[in-house]
């Protein structure tokens, strides 16, 4: 009941046959349907940051003993919409000393990969846009492109301090990408496939009928890889306690200080899209995607389960932001190279031992 996954894919096939039937060449119909699917994903993904920004300000408010936005719309729901409109109409200023082209293209390069990464994410039963066989590697590769966006942002702002901020941000993102990829390797070893949908489906089984066989519940390897993945995702999205890139109180101004209006909105959109992406991946990899916890997934459709679990992890991102102070640059780097990386190697070794033991018994 409520499973709109198969319904949607059914809709796309009928749409294509209908278009093919009405004189549109089969190739054109296929491209048309692809365009419709991509359009739906881009629309829904661009809605998500609106919700996340609102959630962040509300959570921040409640954590600090205040209410958060209450003015625009009931309980401040339209606040993000108002911010968005305000940002769109801000004057578009390009600093004179800056490199014009790089300044204009930087927010696009920082924001576009965020949408592409949502293709292989399994939102529910049958709701994976493109079930790539190498979806995990694909997501890490494409999200690496936005680091180039950060560098371009630093270079495109023209002043030396933003460039330093951009370099620091890029160095942090690149060095935290390695433990992040290595923390997902145990999963690939365990389930033998890289496709997120495959991993999510493989976790639908139950231990002793009650405990769901999610990877997070595997005794040691599950928790270690989840914690490392979460920490690295926080670092990858430049959020506290790793937000040195746009640290206001630090000496070096952040890389996107020179971007006003819609360009700043794009950087903002990218950050929240990546937070949502990281949570969606964490749910697909560690919490069994659209798998219902108590009810056998029948009563509540799988995509509602998926979104619920994703917002649970998004809440952890927001929670970190309002409780942790900021780490210093060198502490942050040594934490990555001297703590997270060795532990991810240990985790891979443990998973290997587990698989060998399982193979023998």
């Amino acid at each position: 009941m409520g499973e709109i996954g198969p319904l949607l894919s059914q809709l796309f096939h009928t749409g294509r046959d209908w278009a093919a039937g009405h004189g549109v060449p089969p190739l054109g119909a296929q491209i048309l349907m692809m365009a419709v699917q991509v359009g739906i994903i881009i629309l829904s993904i661009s809605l998500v940051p609106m919700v996340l920004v609102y959630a962040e300000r509300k959570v921040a408010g409640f954590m600090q003993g205040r209410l958060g936005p209450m003015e625009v719309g009931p309980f401040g729901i339209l606040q993000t919409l108002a911010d968005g409109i305000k940002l769109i109409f801000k004057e578009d200023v390009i600093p004179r000393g800056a490199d014009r082209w790089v300044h204009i293209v930087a927010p696009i390069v920082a924001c576009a990969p965020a949408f592409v990464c949502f293709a292989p994410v399994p939102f529910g039963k049958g709701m994976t846009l493109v079930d790539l066989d190498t979806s995990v590697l694909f997501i890490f590769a494409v999200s690496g492109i936005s680091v180039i966006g950060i560098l371009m942002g630093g270079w495109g702002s023209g002043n030396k301090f933003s460039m330093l901020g951009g370099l620091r941000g890029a160095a942090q993102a690149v060095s935290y990408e390695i433990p992040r990829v290595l923390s997902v390797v145990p999963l690939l070893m365990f389930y033998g496939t890289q496709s997120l949908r495959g991993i999510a489906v493989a976790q639908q089984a139950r231990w002793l009928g009650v405990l769901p066989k999610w990877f997070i519940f595997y005794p040691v390897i599950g928790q270690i890889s989840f914690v490392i993945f979460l920490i690295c995702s926080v670092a990858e999205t430049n959020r506290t306690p790793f937000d040195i890139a746009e640290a206001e109180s630090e000496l070096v101004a952040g890389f996107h200080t020179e971007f006003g209006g819609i360009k700043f909105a794009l950087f903002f959109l990218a950050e929240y899209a990546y937070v949502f992406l990281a949570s969606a991946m964490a749910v697909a990899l560690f919490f069994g995607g659209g798998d219902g916890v108590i009810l056998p997934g029948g009563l509540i459709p799988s995509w509602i389960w998926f979104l619920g679990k994703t917002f649970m992890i998004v809440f952890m991102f927001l929670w970190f932001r309002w409780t942790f102070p900021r780490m210093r640059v060198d502490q942050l780097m040594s934490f990555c190279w001297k703590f997270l990386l060795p532990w991810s190697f240990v985790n891979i070794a443990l998973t290997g031992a587990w698989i060998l033991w399982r193979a023998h018994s």
Partner: protein
Amino acid sequence: MINLPSIIFYTFSVLAIGMAIVVVTSRNVFHSAMALTGTLGVVAGFFALLGADFLAASQVLIYVGGIMIIMLFVVMLSQQPFDALQRQTNTQWLYGILFAAAVAASLIRSFRDVYRGVAAVATDTVPTSAPIGRLLLGDMLVPFEAVSLVLLAALVGAVVFGQDRKAAK
């Protein structure tokens, strides 16, 4: 005949050649680095077109996510105020064009009669991650270990050169 792959092929190749030209002719080194990033992305598209999905993803991951970032680091750290006025190409650009054109013509001429009509055998795209993994650790094990040594040497070399000699003393 127009089918989806050929449309994609032609658009990608126009993009690739256009950006490659920008890489070699642009006055601003940062712009050529941007163009190179674009070219690498399009080459990854070619790999995907040829059914090598694992390769396309790793190309983007390693090249765009790794090498280009280090290259941009060095470009940003070594940029001089008067770079924009400098001529980026030296004087023998005419001979360069001639030589390059000669190489291109000879290559294309030599491929023409050998590989003219070879069309693709219609196999559907099978996922390549697992076979590549088995290949790397199976038949190609020796080069696999050798490359790890090369990478180690490169790492040590980069650290040695990157170190500020005075700081080291």
